[in-house]
C-alpha cells in the first residue's frame, strides 16, 4: 500500500466528503451524537441515511482537534466532580477506569461506592494535598537509602519511597512505557493509581506535559467511536459511529482536517469500495505473493510489436511506442484502439472455458492468471497515481510559467489542480475495485460492477492522457479538462454509490468466506 499521505486529496471531491458542516464548530451543542453515551448500535449509518439522504457510501463523522478533545474531557470530569462530590483528580481517575462511560460510572458509584473506588485504585483514606516529607529514620524500600533528611513521598495508601525513586519510577513508566492513566503505587501488589496532582508535584515540567498528553490519548483510545488520524504529525481524532460489526455492510472512509482520508474501520488509507475484510485478505495475499508483485510493478515493458523497451513515466495507460508508433494498453498489452470502443474489456477477467482447466495444474495456472489479472490492475493504478502526481508536481512549476505566458490568473490555472486531485482519488478507488472484483463471484451484479469500473477507468485514462500534454498546449484543453474532471468524479460517485448500496443490503456474493473479523483489535497504532 502506498503510505504517501497526500495520496488522497483533501479537495478531491467536495461533493462526496461532507464533514458535518453546520455544527462543526462546537461539539457540545452537537445533537447527533450524545457524546457521553455509548452510541446506539446503528447510529452511524441508518439514522443519517434518513436524515440527510446522503449518498450510500458516505458516513457521518466529526473531526476533533486537540483543544476539543481536552474540553470534552474537562467537561466530563467537572460533571462527575459535581454529581458524585469527589475531587476532580478522583473523577478523572474514575472516568478513565470506566473507559469514559459516565453513565455507568455514576450508576455503579451510587450503588456501591467502596467497591468502585477500590477497583479504580482509589482507596478511601483521609484526603489531603500531596506533599513531600522528611521523616526521621526513614529507609527507602526501593533504593535502600537511609541518609538523614531524605525527602520522601507517598500517595494515600501510605507506601512511602524516596523522591528520587519516585521520580525514576515515573520517568520509566511515562517515558519508556508510555503509561499514564494506570500508573500504580510503586509498592508490590498495591493497585492505587497515582493521581495527576501528585504527579505534577514530583516530575519535571516536560515529563508532566508528556503525561498529560498520554492521558488525553487514553480518552480517544478508550472510546470505540474515536480514533486518531493516522497521518504523521496530525493530532486530530475522528469520531464515527460505525461499529466493528457493521464493517461487512459499510466501508467507513473518513477525512481529517489535515486532508488525510482513511478507513475508520481499519485505519488504512481509503479503500472504498472494498470492505475491510477483503482488503485485509487482499493485502495478505499480495504480501504472500510479493515475488509476482515485484515482477509486475516494474516500470518498463517491451513493446508487443517491435520489442523495444518502453518506460512508463506518466500515469496514462495508453502507450505509444517511440520506435514503431504502435499504440497499446500498458495493462493488458492489447491494442489501444480496442479500448475506446464498446467492447473494451481490459478490466474483465475472461474465465477460460472449463474444458481446458481439468487437471490440477491447469487449475492452479488459471487461478494464478486470474490473480495476476487483478493484481496487475490494482498495482498499476497505484503506480499510475504516483506517476500522475509526479507529472502534476512538474506541471505545477510550469503553471507559473503558463500564468505568465497566457496571461491567465492563478485561479484560472486551478483546473489543473482539480484534475490532478480527481486523478488521485479516482485511481485510489480503481485500485481497490480490482481487489474487490477479485473476490466477487460471477453474476449479474458483478457485470454491472465491471461496467461501472470500465466507465470510470476509461474516463480516468482519458483525463490522464490530457495531463501529459506539453504545458504549452494545456491552456487549449482547459474546458475539455474541466469537463473530464467532473465526469471522472461523477463516475466515481456512481460506482461507489452502487457498490455501497449492495453492500449495505448484503447483495454481493463473494468467492471467499467473510467472517466479520476484519478490524484490528487493540489500541490504534500511532507514531
Amino acid at each position, binding site marked *: 500500500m502506498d503510505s504517501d499521505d497526500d495520496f488522497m486529496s483533501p479537495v478531491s471531491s467536495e461533493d462526496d466528503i461532507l464533514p458535518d458542516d453546520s455544527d462543526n464548530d462546537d461539539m457540545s451543542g452537537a445533537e447527533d451524537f450524545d457524546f457521553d453515551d455509548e452510541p446506539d448500535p446503528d447510529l452511524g449509518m441508518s439514522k443519517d441515511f434518513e436524515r440527510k439522504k446522503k449518498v450510500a457510501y458516505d458516513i457521518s463523522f466529526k473531526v476533533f482537534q486537540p483543544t476539543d478533545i481536552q474540553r470534552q474531557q474537562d467537561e466530563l470530569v467537572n460533571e462527575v466532580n459535581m454529581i458524585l462530590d469527589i475531587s476532580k483528580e478522583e473523577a478523572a481517575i474514575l472516568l478513565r477506569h470506566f473507559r469514559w462511560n459516565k453513565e455507568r460510572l455514576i450508576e455503579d458509584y451510587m450503588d456501591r461506592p467502596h467497591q468502585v473506588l477500590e477497583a479504580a485504585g482509589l482507596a478511601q483514606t483521609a484526603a489531603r494535598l500531596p506533599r513531600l516529607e522528611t521523616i526521621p529514620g526513614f529507609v527507602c524500600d*526501593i533504593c535502600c537509602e537511609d541518609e538523614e533528611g531524605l525527602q520522601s513521598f507517598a500517595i494515600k495508601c501510605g507506601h512511602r519511597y524516596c523522591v528520587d525513586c519516585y521520580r525514576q519510577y515515573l520517568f*520509566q513508566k511515562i517515558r519508556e512505557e508510555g503509561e499514564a492513566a494506570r500508573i500504580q503505587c510503586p509498592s508490590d501488589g498495591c493497585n492505587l493509581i497515582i493521581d495527576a496532582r501528585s504527579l505534577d508535584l514530583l516530575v519535571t515540567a516536560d515529563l508532566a506535559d508528556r503525561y498529560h498528553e498520554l492521558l488525553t490519548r487514553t480518552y480517544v483510545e478508550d472510546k470505540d467511536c474515536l480514533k486518531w488520524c493516522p497521518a504523521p504529525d496530525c493530532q486530530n481524532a475522528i469520531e464515527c459511529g460505525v461499529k466493528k460489526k457493521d464493517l461487512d455492510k459499510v466501508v467507513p472512509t473518513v477525512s481529517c482536517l489535515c486532508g488525510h482520508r482513511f478507513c475508520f474501520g481499519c485505519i488504512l488509507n481509503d479503500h472504498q469500495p472494498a470492505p475491510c475484510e477483503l482488503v485485509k485478505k487482499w493485502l495478505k495475499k499480495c504480501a504472500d505473493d510479493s515475488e509476482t508483485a515485484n515482477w509486475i510493478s516494474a516500470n518498463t515493458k517491451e513493446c508487443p510489436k517491435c520489442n523495444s523497451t518502453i518506460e512508463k513515466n506518466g500515469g496514462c495507460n495508453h502507450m505509444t511506442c517511440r520506435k514503431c508508433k504502435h499504440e497499446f494498453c500498458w495493462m493488458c498489452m492489447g491494442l489501444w484502439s480496442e479500448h475506446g470502443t464498446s467492447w473494451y474489456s481490459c478490466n474483465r477477467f475472461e474465465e477460460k472455458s472449463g474444458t481446458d482447466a481439468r487437471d490440477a495444474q491447469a487449475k492452479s495456472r488459471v487461478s494464478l492468471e486470474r490473480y495476476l489479472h487483478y493484481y496487475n490492475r490494482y498495482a498499476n493504478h497505484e503506480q499510475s497515481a504516483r506517476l500522475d502526481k509526479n507529472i502534476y508536481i512538474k506541471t505545477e512549476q510550469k503553471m507559473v510559467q503558463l500564468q505568465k505566458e497566457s496571461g491567465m490568473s492563478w485561479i484560472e490555472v486551478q483546473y489543473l489542480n482539480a484534475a490532478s486531485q480527481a486523478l488521485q482519488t479516482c485511481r485510489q478507488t480503481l485500485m481497490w475495485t480490482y481487489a474487490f472484483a477479485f473476490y466477487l463471484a460471477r453474476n449479474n451484479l458483478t457485470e454491472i460492477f465491471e461496467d461501472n469500473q470500465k466507465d470510470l477507468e476509461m474516463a480516468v485514462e482519458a483525463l490522464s492522457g490530457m495531463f501529459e500534454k506539453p504545458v504549452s498546449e494545456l491552456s487549449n484543453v482547459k474546458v475539455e479538462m474541466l469537463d473530464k474532471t467532473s465526469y471522472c468524479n461523477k463516475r466515481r460517485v456512481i460506482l461507489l454509490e452502487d457498490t455501497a448500496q449492495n453492500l449495505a443490503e448484503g447483495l454481493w456474493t463473494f468467492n471467499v468466506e467473510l467472517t466479520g473479523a476484519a478490524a484490528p483489535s487493540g489500541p490504534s497504532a500511532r507514531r
Partner: protein
Amino acid sequence: MASQKRIAKELADCTTNPPAGMSISLANDSDVHKWHVVLDGPPDSVYAGGKFGIIVSLPSEYPFKAPVVTFATRIYHPNITNDSLGNICLSILKPENWKPASRLLAVLEAVRALLIEPQPDDPLEGRIADEYRRERKEFEKNAKTYVTRYAKGPVKFDVLAAAAAAAPASNTSS
C-alpha cells in the same frame, strides 16, 4: 548508581537466607547484575530430582525495570521455551505488573511455584500446554525424560545462553 545498594542488599538476603531449594551466587564476582541460581526440582513435582540452572540478569535500570530470567537447563514445561534460550513467561516480570518494590526473592519463588503448578492458559509452548491439559500422563513422562536427560549432574550455565540473556544488562558499572 542508586541501584547498587539495593542489589547488594537483595544479594545478601538471598545468599544468607536462601529460598527453599535454591542456591544463589554471582556469575562473576565483579558483576552484581548477573546471578546464577541453582534450583532443585520441587519434590512432588515432575521435576523432582533434577537441578535447574537459572540465570537472572538485572538491567541497568533495575529495580525500575524488571529482571530477565532464563533457564540455562533445558526443561519440558508449558511456560518455558523448549529451546536453548529457556525464556520464561512470568506475570510478575511483565512491565505492567513489575513494581520497583518487587523483590527478586518473590521472582524466584514465582519460578519455583510455576514448576509446581504450570499455567497452561498462558503458554509459551502451546503444544506442551495442550498436552498438559489433555494427556497429563504423556506430559509427565516427557517432563521426566527431560529431567533425566538434561537436569542430572552438575548444573552448567551455558556460555552462549548466558551471553544472550545478559545482553540487556550490559554497560553497567560505577
